[in-house]
């Protein structure tokens, strides 16, 4: 992925912004009156932005979910919570830095907050393994979930992963078992679980921390059985067909509401969470707090029964 500050489909917008900025500099430098031209270009820019962002294809939304400036899990934790105490390690093998978590306060409510973490620069990307956890990451997450359950602290999960890591060590240490076990155990944790897909929700790597009472998704995030590239490589035998695969998989927030997989969409600031991370975090925080409030009205038995029913009824078939 390139480090340029815009996505390919944003190029015309970026170029127009540059032009306006240059013109402003020129006007000031040369002391020339250009405000008329600038105003008209700014109007044009606004229209172009609106047109672009109101007609995003599924593939463009997937690209937005991977925007190099998009807020990541620790950004949301920093912006939404206070008193975060990060807790490390799975007590078996290692501390997986692609999965982070710990206690934090959402205003005056304690939560256990856990999620995949991506890296911003090259060095961090490697340390965070691009947000792709190993089995020890899933086992760390479950340890923290069980800690939360023991002390009756609600769980918040922020999902952002291109998938669980496919590697030799991951297989040796039981990637499949770690994910399967997490899914089973999460379905029975006796505390409320709110899951927010904040960026990428790819496959078992997302679901391995993604079982909950309420599943919410950011407007430009996606969630599916496989990444568009992975799907394209298998079904089209060409990873470059990812845009077609993205259309076919229906992985966007709008799709997931229609398929009744997510409970709600959290709107993003205009043109995406990366344009205003503070505002995005406020919206996410508000949605989490409202949801936790609603879930707190249920008894634990009711919570678990509803959680089971929620998953029991997923599937479309003819009987």
């Amino acid at each position, binding site marked *: 992925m390139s480090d340029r500050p815009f996505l390919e489909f944003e190029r015309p917008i970026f170029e127009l912004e540059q032009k306006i900025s240059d013109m402003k500099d020129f006007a000031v430098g040369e002391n020339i009156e250009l405000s008329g031209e600038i105003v008209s270009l700014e109007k044009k820019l606004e229209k172009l932005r609106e047109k672009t962002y109101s007609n995003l294809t599924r593939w463009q939304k997937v690209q937005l979910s991977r925007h190099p400036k998009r807020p990541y899990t620790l950004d949301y934790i920093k912006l939404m919570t206070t008193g975060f105490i990060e807790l490390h390690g799975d007590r078996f093998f290692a501390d997986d830095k692609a999965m982070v978590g710990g206690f934090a306060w959402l205003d005056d409510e304690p939560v256990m907050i856990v999620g995949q973490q991506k890296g911003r620069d090259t060095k961090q990307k490697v340390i965070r393994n691009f947000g792709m956890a190993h089995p020890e990451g899933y086992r760390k997450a479950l340890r923290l979930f069980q800690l939360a359950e023991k002390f009756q602290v609600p769980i918040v999960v922020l999902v952002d992963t291109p998938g669980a890591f496919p590697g*030799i060590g991951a297989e040796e240490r039981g990637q499949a*078992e770690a994910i399967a076990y997490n899914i089973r155990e999460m379905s*029975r944790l006796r505390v409320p679980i709110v899951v927010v897909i904040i960026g990428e929700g790819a496959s078992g790597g997302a*679901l391995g921390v993604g079982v909950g009472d309420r599943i919410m998704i950011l407007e430009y995030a996606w969630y599916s*059985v496989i990444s568009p590239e992975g799907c394209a490589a298998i079904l089209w035998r060409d990873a470059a067909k990812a845009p077609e*695969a993205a259309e076919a998989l229906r992985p966007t927030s709008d*799709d997931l509401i229609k398929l009744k997989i997510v409970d709600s969409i959290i709107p993003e600031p205009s043109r995406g969470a990366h344009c205003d991370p503070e505002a995005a975090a406020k919206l996410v925080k508000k949605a989490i707090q409202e949801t936790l409030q609603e879930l707190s009205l249920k008894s634990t038995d009711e919570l678990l029964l509803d959680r089971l029913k929620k998953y029991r009824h*997923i599937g479309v078939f003819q*009987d």
Partner: protein
Amino acid sequence: MAWFRKSKEGLPTQEKRNIPEGIWTKCDSCGEVVYGKKMEELLWVCPNCDFHFRIPTQKYIDLLLDDGQLEEYDIEISSLDPLKFKDSKKYPDRIKAAQQKTGKTEGVIAGMATMGGIEISFAIMNFQFIGGSMGSVVGEKIARAIERAIEKEVPLIIVSSSGGARMQEGILSLMQMAKTSALLAILHEKKIPYISILTNPTTAGVMASYASLGDVILVEPKALLGFAGPRVIQQTIGQDLPDGFQSSEFFMDKGFVDKIVNRKDLRDTVIALLRFMWSK
């Protein structure tokens, strides 16, 4: 998710030209050529290298269950096309082709049976049906098999073979992992035994859900198991994979399966285990 070797019922295409079908069979693993009738007797296990050929689901039913008898449930349940999915083929056309090929409506056969006189809820996946991929129907039939085990209070036996979740149903397929695993949590709480039998191959979404959640996990020799496909891993890490990587033997060595069991011993092993785990 769905990755698998070319399906081969019997012989690789290349060999069909040289050897009359059904008479001689060449082992995929060691190349040994064996007389077909002999292979039938050997339950399609290579006498030279112990490679277990993929066999039809009906053969497992015959092999495992008392008198080969299965009272089948949910026969009519079949797939729809909720995503209107199309790649090189339309999804409904893929289903139709799989139905014609297998004579079955979907990729799981499930029902009630007995093993050694013990009543069980049984399900078996069919790799011939779109690579044993798990969509809504496969998930639902497995879910109902688990529910029958819970309601009737009988042990659950699932024979898996799968390339993973069915991409053509997108997120709905992924959620079948949660549906089945959540029900297995209930089965687990009720202390009802679940024996998971893995056959070649069991991978991805199925391996990362019910296949890995057995109280006891049995596996046939030399099966391909794992979360990610070998090709994906190879591409990701950019190096060759060690010999025997992701085989049954590899996973037993790493501690993720209980026992490697030759096909001819599967039935007796399951019954012996049930006698320890289920005295009702």
